[in-house]
């Protein structure tokens, strides 16, 4: 269970401060489309939300001691599944969304069963192979549109929210709100799990899996659980993505995308399972935008930003606020993972 608190104030004022801050944040987010009119900036907001969701799944796996390179793969699986449900099976998006979540989760279950068996490092390797393999699979299956992908994916059908309005997905704003809902759902689910015994078990496994096992924790089952949840959430984001962008191309779901997601989470701060990914994604998506002189410089700006942050804020952006996560030590322990991964391979020690 991870709690971020500022060093001043006792427990009660801490909780109160957090609740007020969260409430204000939610209100601001909900009112945002009234202020931001430009479709371009709305797009950036929506994408950062999506990236935040994906980054959170990275942290979920990282907590259990596993670095997953398949995040984009399941994102793609969700996207393609949703596309198939709507375009081939003529289902409504609102059916396709939960269905894609289930599909991604089930595939995650089958694949995870094989992957989680391997040692921590084996998992990384296998997830990397999956990440690379999935594009080739998408690209070679004709009914998935091959390497050019599928276009003209219809937007979600209009729905009627009782007492509010009939919502048509004709502009950015409805997508934005849908993204907010998905983000909110993800946060609620993950927080609940982190606070419950499962979250504790994950943290124990991530800190010392041998010890956890000797205390009766079924390491394999908990890690598999984490993998399934991560895959399902990524699949959910994928379903949204397919219908928002209106197209799916295999190239969007490559390993580099996964690596970028990792970076968002790391730059935000791995100590924070929810805030870190959000801060990381928002900053890394917006700042290059705001600083761009011309479009062509953008990746360079992003690259420079990445390097500056990692050089000067090694524990991530959130360390700027002096917020001490209770799990700072967990963050350090997680960094040791990387070294463990190297060492356990005959990198001859470091």
């Amino acid at each position, binding site marked *: 269970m991870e709690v971020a608190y500022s060093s001043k104030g006792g427990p009660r004022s801490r909780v109160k401060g957090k609740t007020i801050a969260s409430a204000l944040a939610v209100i601001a987010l909900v009112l945002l489309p009234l202020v931001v009119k430009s479709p371009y900036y709305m797009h950036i907001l929506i994408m950062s939300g999506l990236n935040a969701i994906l980054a959170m799944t990275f942290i979920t796996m990282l907590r259990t001691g596993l670095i997953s390179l398949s995040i984009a793969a399941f994102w793609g699986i969700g996207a393609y599944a949703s596309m198939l449900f709507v375009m081939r099976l003529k289902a409504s998006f609102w059916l396709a969304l939960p269905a894609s979540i289930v599909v991604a989760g089930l595939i995650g279950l089958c694949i995870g069963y094989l992957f989680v068996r391997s040692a921590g490092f084996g998992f990384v390797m296998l997830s990397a192979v999956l990440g690379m393999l999935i594009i080739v699979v998408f690209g070679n299956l004709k009914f998935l549109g091959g390497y050019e992908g599928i276009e003209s994916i219809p937007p979600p059908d209009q729905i009627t929210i009782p007492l509010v309005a009939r919502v048509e997905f004709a502009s950015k704003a409805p997508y934005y709100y849908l993204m907010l809902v998905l983000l909110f759902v993800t946060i609620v689910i993950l927080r*609940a*799990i982190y*606070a*419950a*015994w*499962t979250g*504790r*078990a994950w*943290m*124990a496994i991530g*800190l*010392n899996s*041998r*010890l*956890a*096992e*000797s*205390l*009766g*924790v*079924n*390491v394999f089952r908990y890690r598999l659980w984490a993998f399934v949840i991560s895959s399902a959430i990524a699949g959910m984001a994928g379903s949204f993505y397919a219908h928002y962008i209106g197209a799916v191309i295999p190239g969007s779901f490559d390993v580099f995308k996964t690596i970028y997601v990792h970076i968002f989470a790391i730059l935000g701060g791995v100590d924070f399972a929810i805030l870190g990914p959000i801060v990381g994604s928002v900053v890394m998506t917006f700042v290059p935008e705001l600083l761009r002189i011309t479009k062509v410089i953008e990746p360079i700006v992003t690259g420079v930003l990445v390097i500056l942050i990692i050089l000067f804020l090694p524990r991530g952006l959130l360390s700027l606020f002096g917020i001490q996560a209770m*799990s700072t*030590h*967990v963050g*350090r*322990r997680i960094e040791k993972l990387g070294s463990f991964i190297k060492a356990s391979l005959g990198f001859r020690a470091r």
Partner: protein
Amino acid sequence: MLQVRKVVKSFGGLVALNSLDLDIEDSEILGVIGPNGAGKTTLFNVVSGYFPPTEGEVRFDGEDITGLRADEIAALGISRTFQAATLFTALSVLENVFVGCHMQYKTHIWKRLLRTPAALREEGRLKARAMEILEFMGLSSLKDELAGNLPHGHQKILSASMAIATGPKLLLLDEPVTGMNETEIAAMVDLVRRIRDSGITIAVVEHNMKTVVNLCDRLVVLNYGQKIAEGPPREILEKEEVIEAYLGEKEADDVA
């Protein structure tokens, strides 16, 4: 309670346990001694499920537990500590023990996730149990300290507390007093006795002969992965084979 039969454990060319036969009786405090490399920790590893034996059988309470995973064996009632005080260094003392308590959870996982009143009640109960264990072991004043910050002796006691939290019938203590001073050792010995009195059978691997003689009802001596002697402490330590096995070990000086 526990029967080890003809257990062999080899690592590539190295044979750590060589057709070992051993029994642990109910309610006893058994000492497992022997020179370095005799296979004592390997024995604990096999029994607790850290790795399976290459050959042989382990039976616990009549059931065959050979080759089961560590968490399965923990669920059956065997718990252990590690030679190096293995803790969740990033968590507090109370949280460490709380992890150990998890096996006592009765409410179904979904109810726990939804934080139903029943689930929350049980969580409260388990937290209380964790506190009880800390009090029993004398660590309650340190409950919010980070485990990694504790001095060595307290870390060892914390390891033992976590192992007890799982509610074991058999507790394997691997070098519980190594690195402790006289006062700490005395406290630990007292703790171990009280743990046994609360109904848990104990097996101890230890090098400190004074402690072993003081604490254990019975001794088993291992050398080169085999049992070379067993019996009451005083008697064992005077046996020729035992003294010979220790020649070359400084412990020979400690023999009473």
